[in-house]
């Protein structure tokens, strides 16, 4: 059984292409300077259309998390940590926190991006705890 794959789309494909080469890509607005995620056809802050992709630092902190004890399908191995990560650049994204005991995760913990294969062609960001 396969993991749930991201639905295709031009912007999603550009994001995933970044993941494949180890970049967490955010859109940056040429008008107001805001970073945003998820990618959109306009800046959510000022509705400017001059957006460019930039590689994020990959640093962030845990806004919240949960340990899923009952997996959504057989493709996922419970327990797994689903978290909301506040990136240093501002936007928040959902991800997994991997390579740690679930009980080591806490709100406010510092994390760093990593990348994991979701299928033969799709790579997505995941995060690991960063202890200074």
């Amino acid at each position, binding site marked *: 059984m396969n993991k*749930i794959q991201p639905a295709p789309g031009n912007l999603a494909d550009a994001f995933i292409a970044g993941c494949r080469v180890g970049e967490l890509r955010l859109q940056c607005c040429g008008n107001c300077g805001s970073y945003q995620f998820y990618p959109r056809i306009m800046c959510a802050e000022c509705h400017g259309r001059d957006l460019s992709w930039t590689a994020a630092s990959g640093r962030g902190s845990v806004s919240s998390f949960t340990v899923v004890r009952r997996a959504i399908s057989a493709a*996922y191995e419970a327990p797994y940590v689903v978290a909301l990560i506040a990136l240093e650049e501002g936007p928040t994204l959902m991800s997994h926190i991997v390579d740690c005991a679930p009980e080591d995760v806490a709100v406010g913990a510092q994390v760093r991006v990593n990348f994991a294969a979701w299928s033969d062609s799709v790579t997505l960001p995941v995060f690991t705890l960063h202890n200074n």
Partner: protein
Amino acid sequence: MDSLRGKVAIVGAADTRVGIVPDATATELCVESILLALADAGLDKTQVDGLVTCNSMSQPMLYHAEAIAEYLQIFPRYCFAAGAGGGTTFSVLHHAASAIATGMAETIVIAMADSLRSGLTRDQAMLMQSATGHPQYEQPYGPTVPAYYALIAQAHMARYGTTPEHFAAVAVACRAHAARNPAAQMRDLISVDDVLASRMIADPLHLLDCSLVSDGGAAIVLTSAERARDFSQAPVYLLGIGEGHSHEHISQARSLTTSAAVESGQRAYAMAGLGPRDMDFAQLYDCFTPTVLVELEDLGFCAKGEGGDFITSAGIGPGGALPVNTHGGLLSHCHPGNPGSMFALTESVWQLRGTARDRQLAKAAVGLLHAQGGIMSSHSTLILGREAG
């Protein structure tokens, strides 16, 4: 335009059997609820000129309300099915009340039903669940529906010191209300320890922090306050209604711990000219226990961050300072998905009529109802009263 305050009234209300009802389809439950509500109002089918439903997950239809009208052979001039989501129930009431006030229709039936328990296979149910998040940036991480709400709970715990015991107390209170309601799906009393000892689903939510999966339907009849005087049932008046919409996907929420229930509540209170202290009861959306705690705060029943203390000190169970979910709520009465808040609505009608039998509140002149959909995304608040205001 004038406020809707006191302009419309509920003159009929009914629930079908709820819980596990394998002998009726979602369509049949929807039709049954309408027949019962019309009988309660003393109306026949020719006297209905508006129909609003919500789509069913077990028997989805492209034009759901139109199909139900066809089944009943009624021919409304106002007819639509609301999009999916628990928060839509009172949004529908908002629209229907406006339709009556502007003359689009005179007598509108609002009916919602589904068969999530008997009408879906386990695989269909899991598929439906996985479709909740953002299809590109959330779903691949495999969050379950309880997991989304666990993110809210965990953030509240970290920020305000709320505990799993506080959440558990919500489930205990709802069950105590349900114990007085013969229609409720789950009626055996439970303790905080029972909740904490139940299986962990998504930290910090245990099985008993999660609402039921049920079959069932409910309907109400709404008409102008002027016409409502001619009905046999005591009218229940709409005094205030408001909405607030902040996001769809949890990763895009402005705040994990404060919701758009703040705006929706303020709008409803402003229309009614009333505040939280005026409410004799509250029916608060309880798909998972943390939502009740956040709604108590955001609707002004206590200060931000003090929801846990309000639940355990003031009390929301029978005899508490603010009885919440007097029928047992989604946690203990029934939860057939989208129609969930309809049962809070019919229960409120009975409390305000004074016909709630063993669970009738000593004082029930004004009550507040709150529904939310998405992941604390879309909010609607309704204030109902025994007098037109």
